Each structure stands twice: as structure tokens, then as C-alpha cells.
């Protein structure tokens, strides 16, 4: 960077002056770091913490425009049309063309295996009208799914090689049996891209536990009932930017997403990852689960980069996050966190209260609404029964 800047200086004396000044600054910093009074400046952990604290406002300055940011007035009860940057494009209708031998064949070419299919309690969920903040929960007239949550199985993996076929199949079978028993997901896509329906679409699955999301009209609390679950057989490394799923899984995931969105008119903004919706109400922290926290291939699924969407848990219900959450997530996820923070600040400014006061109000709102939920919609514990392991909380 220094050399690049120096190269732009034509005058040789000016160039040397610039380089010498830069060198002096570095020398001063070096001296400071070596000084016994400033030992803490050379402490790497402290610098990482400082960098983390500085990152949030920096990201808010660097974010792309136009942003999928909800206008503060909309959050306060006005129109919410700015949540999504682009209008929905109607999807081509997908339909079943064949069903034999435990395999469904769909019009877009996807095959869905049904031999592990099981039922659970019928889908029934309540929503909160964001445009009427004082309103209570409402039961939607339709019982069809409102969205999709993408998961990872976090199950044991084997090298994807032909020589390991037997072991790979064994692991896949065991996983599906476990998911079936726990009624954990609606769909599982194994590493060969095979799609298995586990919990029928008309029923709830135990996939999201404590969770929230919101679209332009409705806020959803507890997504087990309201959202469908697609889980990819994989393990997600925290913060890893590259997808850790096979191309076959990507292809199947895209076709399955298209079928589900087409059948239930699911908005693209309601297709999100578990990390985006997971919460822990006991400490009001987000990201209790962090699967697909930063490397979900939204674009490959035919979706916009929904990591940019603000998180309902933060801006509607006053949840917050800690350093552990950042350590577990990728840079893409932070965009949504930053835009949520912007919304919070904007609304606090409009209401002439501090962000902390606003958070308290929003948390009370969450408590009020979650208390109204029927027991079936609100699992007792903070964990769900699915395969993935929750993130460890800070002490």
C-alpha cells in the first residue's frame, strides 16, 4: 500500500518525504510497542478485540447500496416496503409428474425419495403483525409454510471417494434414521445430492427451536411450525467463506427450493439459514446455532444474498450478540447484523430514547408475544432436537 501510494508521487523529493514520514510513523509505533508502559499494545488478543469493536461501524460505512434496510419509520409502525430490494419474480409452477417405488419425480427433474418420510404434529402457527405493534398474535388462515430454513446436519462425514462408498452409504442411512426418529427436518440432501423427504410438508419439524424471523408483514416466533427445513449432509466450519457442500447438493438444493417456493409462494426473503434465525431467550443473545452462519450459497440456490437482510431478532425483539457470535460467523452474515444495528439506532433516535432503552422495550415485546404462543409452537427448552450442536455461550 505504501509503495502504491509512493508510486503516484511524481516529485522525487516529495516521494522521499512521504516514505520517510511513513517510516518514522512506523518506527514510533514500533518504539511504543516495545515500551514497557504499553505492553498491552503488543497483545494480540487486545488488538483482535479492538478490531472487532471497530469492525461494526466500519462495515456500516462500507456496505453496498442499495441496502435491504428497513426504514426506521417502517419499524415504528409505518410501511415496510423497503425490506427487500427487488420485487419478487413469479416462479414457474413445479408439479409432480411421477411417484413410484418410493421416488417422486418433479417437473423440474428433481427426484425425492420418500422411504424415510414420517409425520409429526400438523402445521399450525401464529404470527405477529409488524404493522400493528400493539396487536396480539394472529393465526394465519392458511397453514402452508411461510419460509425455508437451511440447516447442516453436522453429522460425521467420510471422504467422498468411490472406495468409501459403503461407509458413505452407512453414514447416510444412519443420519436419515436419526432425523426420522427426531422428526428433525422436512428434507435432507445427502452428499450425493439425493433428496429425502423426512417430515411431511404439512407438518411441523423440530428443526429451529427458539427462533425468529420477519418479512414485510409478519414476524414469526418459533419457526418449527412456520418454516420448512432443508438440511444438507455436511459440517460447516465457522467463518469459512467457501461452501462445504458438493455440487450435487447445490443442484438438488436449488431444485428443491424452487419446488417449495413455487408450491407455497414462499418469498425469497423468507429463505434463510439457521444461524440467521436462531436465538437464546435466556440471555437474549442471537446465534445459539451457527450452521450456515456465513457460507451458505444463496445465489446458487436461486436466491438473493439474504445475509444482507436485517435480523428480526435484533431489530424487532432487542436481542444482541457477543464476540463468540462473531468468531463463529463469516463476514457475509455481519452485513445483516450491521443493517439491524442501523435500524435500531434509527428507531431509538426517532423515539428519543437510547438504544439500550429501546432494546429493553423490544425484549419485553418478545416476552409478551412468546408467552401468548401455544405450547406446541414454543418448545420448552432453548435447544431443538435436531442433530447440530449449539454454540457454546460465553460464561
Amino acid at each position, binding site marked *: 500500500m505504501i509503495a502504491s501510494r509512493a508510486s503516484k508521487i511524481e516529485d*522525487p*523529493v*516529495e516521494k*522521499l518525504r512521504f*516514505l*520517510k514520514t511513513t*517510516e518514522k510513523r512506523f518506527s514510533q509505533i514500533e518504539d511504543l510497542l516495545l515500551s514497557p508502559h504499553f505492553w498491552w499494545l503488543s497483545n494480540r488478543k487486545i488488538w483482535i478485540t479492538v478490531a472487532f469493536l471497530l469492525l461494526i461501524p466500519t462495515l456500516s460505512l462500507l456496505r453496498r447500496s442499495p441496502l435491504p434496510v428497513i426504514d426506521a419509520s417502517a419499524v415504528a409502525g409505518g410501511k415496510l416496503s423497503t425490506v427487500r430490494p427487488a420485487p419478487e419474480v413469479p416462479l414457474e409452477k413445479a408439479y409432480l409428474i411421477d411417484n413410484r417405488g418410493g421416488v417422486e419425480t418433479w417437473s423440474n427433474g428433481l427426484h425425492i425419495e420418500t422411504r424415510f418420510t414420517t409425520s409429526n404434529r400438523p402445521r399450525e402457527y401464529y404470527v405477529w403483525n409488524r404493522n400493528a405493534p400493539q396487536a396480539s398474535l394472529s393465526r394465519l388462515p392458511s397453514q402452508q409454510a411461510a419460509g425455508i430454513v437451511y440447516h447442516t446436519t453436522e453429522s460425521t462425514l467420510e471422504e467422498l471417494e468411490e472406495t468409501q462408498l459403503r461407509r458413505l452409504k452407512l453414514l447416510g442411512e444412519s443420519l436419515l434414521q436419526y432425523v426420522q426418529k427426531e422428526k428433525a427436518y422436512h428434507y435432507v440432501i445427502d452428499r450425493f445430492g439425493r433428496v429425502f423427504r423426512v417430515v411431511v410438508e404439512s407438518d411441523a419439524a423440530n428443526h429451529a427451536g427458539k427462533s425468529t424471523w420477519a418479512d414485510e408483514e409478519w414476524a414469526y416466533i418459533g419457526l418449527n411450525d412456520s418454516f420448512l427445513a432443508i438440511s444438507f449432509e455436511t459440517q460447516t466450519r465457522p467463518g469459512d467463506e467457501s461452501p462445504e457442500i458438493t455440487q450435487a447438493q447445490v443442484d438438488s438444493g436449488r431444485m428443491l427450493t424452487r419446488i417449495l417456493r413455487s408450491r407455497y409462494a414462499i418469498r425469497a426473503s423468507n429463505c434463510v439459514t439457521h444461524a440467521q434465525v436462531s436465538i437464546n431467550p435466556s440471555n437474549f443473545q442471537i446465534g445459539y446455532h451457527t450452521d450456515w452462519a456465513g457460507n451458505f450459497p444463496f445465489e446458487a440456490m436461486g436466491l438473493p444474498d439474504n445475509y444482507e437482510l436485517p435480523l428480526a431478532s435484533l431489530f424487532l425483539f432487542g436481542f444482541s450478540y457477543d464476540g463468540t457470535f462473531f468468531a463463529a460467523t463469516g463476514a457475509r452474515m455481519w452485513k445483516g447484523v450491521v443493517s439491524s444495528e442501523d435500524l435500531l439506532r434509527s428507531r431509538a433516535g426517532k423515539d428519543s430514547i437510547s438504544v439500550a432503552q429501546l432494546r429493553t422495550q423490544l425484549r419485553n415485546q418478545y416476552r409478551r408475544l412468546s408467552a401468548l404462543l401455544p405450547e406446541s409452537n414454543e418448545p420448552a427448552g432453548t435447544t431443538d432436537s435436531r442433530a447440530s450442536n449449539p454454540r457454546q455461550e460465553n460464561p
Partner: protein
Amino acid sequence: MKQTQQTPAIGLDVGTSRIVAAVQNGDQFLFKSQLNAFVEVPWSKMTEASLKRESVPFVVSGEGFEKKIIVPGNESSRFADLLQSESRRPMNRGVLNPTEPENAIMLKQLIENLTEGVRSPGIPVYYSVPAAPLGAEENLTYHDASIAQILRELGCEPTPINEGLAVVFSELEETNYSGIGISFGGGLVNVCLSYLAVPVLSFSVAKAGDYIDSSAASITGELTTRIRLAKEESFQLNGPFHDKLHQVLNVYYDEVIRAVCSGLKEAFSNSRNIPKMGRPVPMVLSGGTTLPKGFRDRFEKVLKELDFPLPLSEIRMAQAPLNSTAKGALVAALAEM
């Protein structure tokens, strides 16, 4: 040195063979040089009058029978040739000549003459100093302090600058002052590797122009003064060699080049401080010893034979080999203002 505007600083190359002063005049750099040598002529009224008539700068020293005329600088060479005597040198091997009792006095005289008309009270003067010889920890403090004292006595604000680094500041602006500057002087060859204007490695090699002169003189029986004149005026390294003097010069040039290249390889191979430069760096050659035609080619050939460890983008001559150290010193001075 025609000076129309007051220079804000002076760059001074205090070399064993020459002293060069650089000043700024608007957008231009101007240079003035003097041989760093002098001759003593017995005093007579007639000699003093003829020197005055010829406008030759001189100093009368001593009283009575001890009275003598000292001719410093460029004219010393001609007088030495006329008088069939060796000129005396205030400096030797890059530092003040310990065997010359008049070293500081003559050096002051030369610097005073060179900077006359451009000096102003408190003017910053960056003066070149050599690096420690390779493999030795020579104490350069006395030399450095002596030059600084001379400059203070002349009303200047002295700051030393490594000679090799001055070459970098003069010649390697295009690479953001990253590269190797080599000054082939009379007493020493000074080398400096710089990275973004920061000197990373610098050293000197004690085989230089004077070694060639004295060695050739001892073989041919000529005066070193004449050898130097022959070397600078008619010698070329790519031959052909018509006489013994040129053959001998060729041999000793080759020896100096090999010594410097070996020193370079040794220093760069053994140093642990060399940063990753990212790309090949240029090497620039300057100084009076590089003036004979074919010097660069011979140097490059020998360096390639020795498998120099640092990737080089080019080996080239300085634009003005005799002035580059002084220019670099001036650039350094201006950059600090």
C-alpha cells in the same frame, strides 16, 4: 556553480578522490566538484604572482623558510604533474587520511571553496559518509565527527548520509527508492540495499579506484597522479590494449570488480535482515571508477558468474556517475525540510 536562487540545502559528496557539492536552483540541481587533493609548492614571490595571474586558488602557509604555497583541488593534479611530485590526499580509504597532518585544514579549504556563494548561515548540509568495511567494524566516528565539525565551522547544519543510500536517493526514484546503490569511489566501494528508502544493508569494500592507481603505478613506475589521469581520460575495459599501462589497468580493474562482486555475494548471502522485496530490484553503479567504457558489462558478467542471490531487474550506470552521491544527499536534505 551559477546560482540565481538561494538553495535551501546543500548535498555534499565527501569522497576520497573528489568532493562534489549539489545545490538546487529552481527545478534544477547544479553541481560543482573539486579533487580532494592538494600540492605544496615552495613559496616565491614569482610563483605567488603567477598563480594569481592564472586565477589558481592557493593558500600561503608558514613563515620564513617554512613558507609554502598550497594549491588545493582541481589544479593540484596539474601542478603535481608539472612538479613531478605526488599530490597529497586529505582522505584515504574513504576517511580522513591519518598520515596527512593537514587533512582537516585542507578538507575545510576545499569545502569552503566549493560552497562559496551558496552557503548561508544555518543551511542544512547532508554529507556522505562511508559504511563500515565488510567483515570489519571500523570506527567511522572520528571521520564523521571531523566533517561535521568542519561544516559547523563554516556555519552549516551538518547531517551525515550513507554514501550508498545517497546513490539510491539519486537514481532509484522510479522504484520508490528500493534497490541497490553502489558508489565506486577512490578509497572505497560503498554498497547499500534500500527498501522503500529504508537502508536495509550497507557495507563498503576497501578495494577501489586508488587501489587500481597505486597497483598500476607500482608495476609501471608511473606516478599515481598520471595513472589516474590516464584511467579517466583514455582507458576502456573492453579493449584493445595498446600499451602496458592499459593492460595493467585492465588487470587491476578486473580484480576490483571481482572483489566487489564477491563482497556483494557474501554480504547478501549472509545477511538475515533482507526483506522479501516482492519483485527483482535494480542495481545502479556510480562513482568515478565506473567511468571507463565497458565497466557495467564487465561488472554484470562477473556478478552473474558468482550467482548473486538477490533477483535483479537490471544493472545500470547512474545518469551522472560523478554527481549521483551529492545529488542523493541533496534530495535527502530537501525531503527533510
